């Protein structure tokens, strides 16, 4: 699949892409909710700690203060005694700093207006988040109390460190999860679609020429089974219609044979007794037409018969089967001053019906001889190309214009109306190729020649050396 977008993706690919996106969205949402929660929880822990410190300070101050007036010295003493990484600052109601330790810058900044932040017990509030620190502000509820506002603060270093390492972990895990999710959906889709893929392979092996073939039905009753059943029903209807059509062609051809015989017999008898050259000529013309009709009936029967099922299971080497055909063709070609040469002539093996295979090559070569001017050259080759046997017939004839090229294999189509025959030869070749599970292709250049290539599946274990090249 080297083609870029907008190449439509397979179902499996689409499921894989959808799975990748779904896992990505889900894991990003989970990670962000988790980090948010973790952050809140860490803040809460920090707040509890800060509150305990602050309450401890207030309690210690309350126990040791002797008068109602603020004792700045005592406050400073208690603040300095504070251990750990908690900063404490005491402000009066007018916004003057009364006592503070130097541990933390945040505690030294003036407290914000009382209206902002979260309150604890209607007195504590968490200040707006500073990225690296957390502080709590406590305002003494009673007016005129010894302490105006108490600010406790702590570094968020630990909390931030924890958040950072969790974020880092998420940065590693999330892409991993996305990749895994994408792969898993692609893989699971592959498993789910496997019956479908095998059905595609089975359907590919159905030959256009074998109407009795059906897809295997798993019998599992699932969607794939239903699809196989539906396709088999369609195939059956096609087979019935095809049979009716071909049965008609075959019956009609057979029914025409007896009257044609009678016609011939009567005309022959009349011809023997014909008295004038004119009546003799007329009778001969009638006989010629009977001959043509006979050929037509035969041609139609040959075509119809292929649809009735033929045995194509003989192991044959086309190079050997074709030897006699080439002998006849050489005879015919030399009569018309044409050169018939073999190009590649490899010995290989395929499953086929030998008389039909001979008919196929004969029709192609006969066609080439017919449409090539004297002095021309016809090349015939048999070679293995990958798993296929390619039968190539190339002429230096008049060629066929591109717009007529694809019609060459239609029954009754003739490039030249004066060419004789009924235009059934190449139609027969195509049908023969198809009943052998093969195909035919044609290339042509006007005035330069035409090349027919028949590809038939070859047997794999036939590595015979080429006879000549």
């Amino acid at each position: 699949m080297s083609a870029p977008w907008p190449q439509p993706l397979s179902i499996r690919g689409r499921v894989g892409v959808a799975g990748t996106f779904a896992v990505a969205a889900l894991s990003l949402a989970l990670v962000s909710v988790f980090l948010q929660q973790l952050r809140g929880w860490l803040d809460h822990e920090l707040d509890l700690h800060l509150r305990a410190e602050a309450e401890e300070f207030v309690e210690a101050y309350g126990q040791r203060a002797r008068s109602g007036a603020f004792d700045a010295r005592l406050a400073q003493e208690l603040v300095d005694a504070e251990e750990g990484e908690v900063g404490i600052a005491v402000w009066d109601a007018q916004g003057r700093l009364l006592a503070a330790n130097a541990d933390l810058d945040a505690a030294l900044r003036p407290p914000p207006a009382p209206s902002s932040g979260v309150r604890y017990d209607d007195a504590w509030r968490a200040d707006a988040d500073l990225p690296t620190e957390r502080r709590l502000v406590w305002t003494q509820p009673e007016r005129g109390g010894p302490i105006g506002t108490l600010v406790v603060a702590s570094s968020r270093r630990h909390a931030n460190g924890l958040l950072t390492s969790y974020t880092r972990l998420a940065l590693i895990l999330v892409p991993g999860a996305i990749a895994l999710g994408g792969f898993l959906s692609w893989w699971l889709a592959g498993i789910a679609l496997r019956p479908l893929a095998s059905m595609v392979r089975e359907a590919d092996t159905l030959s256009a020429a074998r109407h009795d073939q059906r897809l295997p039905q798993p019998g599992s009753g699932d969607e794939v089974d239903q699809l196989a059943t539906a396709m088999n029903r369609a195939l059956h209807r096609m087979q019935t219609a095809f049979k009716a059509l071909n049965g008609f062609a075959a019956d009609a051809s057979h029914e025409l044979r007896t009257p044609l015989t009678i016609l011939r017999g009567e005309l022959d008898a009349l011809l023997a007794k014909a008295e004038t050259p004119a009546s003799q000529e007329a009778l001969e013309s009638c006989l010629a037409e009977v001959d043509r009709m006979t050929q037509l009936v035969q041609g139609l029967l040959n075509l119809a018969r292929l649809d009735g099922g033929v045995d194509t299971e003989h192991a044959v080497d086309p190079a050997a089967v074709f030897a006699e055909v080439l002998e006849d063709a050489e005879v015919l070609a030399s009569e018309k001053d044409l050169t018939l040469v073999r190009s590649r002539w490899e010995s290989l093996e395929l499953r086929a019906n030998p008389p039909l295979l001979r008919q196929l090559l004969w029709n192609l070569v006969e066609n080439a001889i017919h449409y090539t001017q004297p002095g021309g050259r016809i090349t015939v080759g048999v070679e293995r190309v990958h798993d296929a046997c390619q039968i190539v017939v190339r002429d230096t004839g008049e060629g066929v214009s591109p717009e007529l090229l694809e019609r060459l294999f239609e029954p009754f189509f003739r490039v030249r109306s004066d060419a004789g025959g009924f235009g059934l030869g190449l139609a027969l070749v195509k049908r023969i190729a198809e009943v052998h599970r093969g195909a035919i292709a044609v290339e042509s250049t006007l005035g330069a020649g035409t090349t027919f290539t028949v590809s038939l599946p070859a047997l794999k274990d036939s590595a015979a050396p080429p006879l000549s090249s």
Partner: protein
Amino acid sequence: MRILLIEDNEKLARIMATALREQGHALDRSSDGVDGLHLALSEPYDLLIVDLGLPELSGLEVLRRVRADGTRDVPILVVTARDSVEDRVRGLDSGADDYLVKPFAVAELLARVRALLRRGSGSADAVLKVGETELDPARRRVRHAGEPVELSPREFSLLEYFMRRPGVVLSRSMILEHVWDYRSEILSNVIDVHVRRIRKKLGDPAGERTILTRRGMGYCFGQEEP
């Protein structure tokens, strides 16, 4: 010679009967299988001509019963509209000696009748000798007037077919059926070319002593025997 024709189509039967009688044969006609079988088993015919598509009793059944009788080594020519290989094999397996597919020319019918009445003789591998020509089927060698002749495989098969039936006119379709296994209208030209080449190799380019042309009928190796 006495011939029984079992053919249900009145017109066709009349044409065939007229032509055969003109050749001097004594001809009996029957238009259905039961009656035809009865005649075939009760009269000493030299040849039976049986259409496969018969009313009452099918032609194949007539063939089988005539052969089952055991006393009848009479040659049987089958006439049929069915010409697939399977049909042929079934007909020949049932005891037919030759198989004539409709539509056919009267000359074709006569040629086949003649060939059947003078059935080829000799074992398959015996050296064939007609006039100055000798053909050894086992060694695939041909000598003419004592000189070895080089023939292609196709030419050899063709000459062998001719030499097994010396003096019998062989039609193009008989030749095609015996020597070729694919059909094509154009093949009759190929027969002509092969015949010309064989004649040349046998030192008879004009076709006066070996393979003779019988206009409108076919070819004959050596003079036609009466």
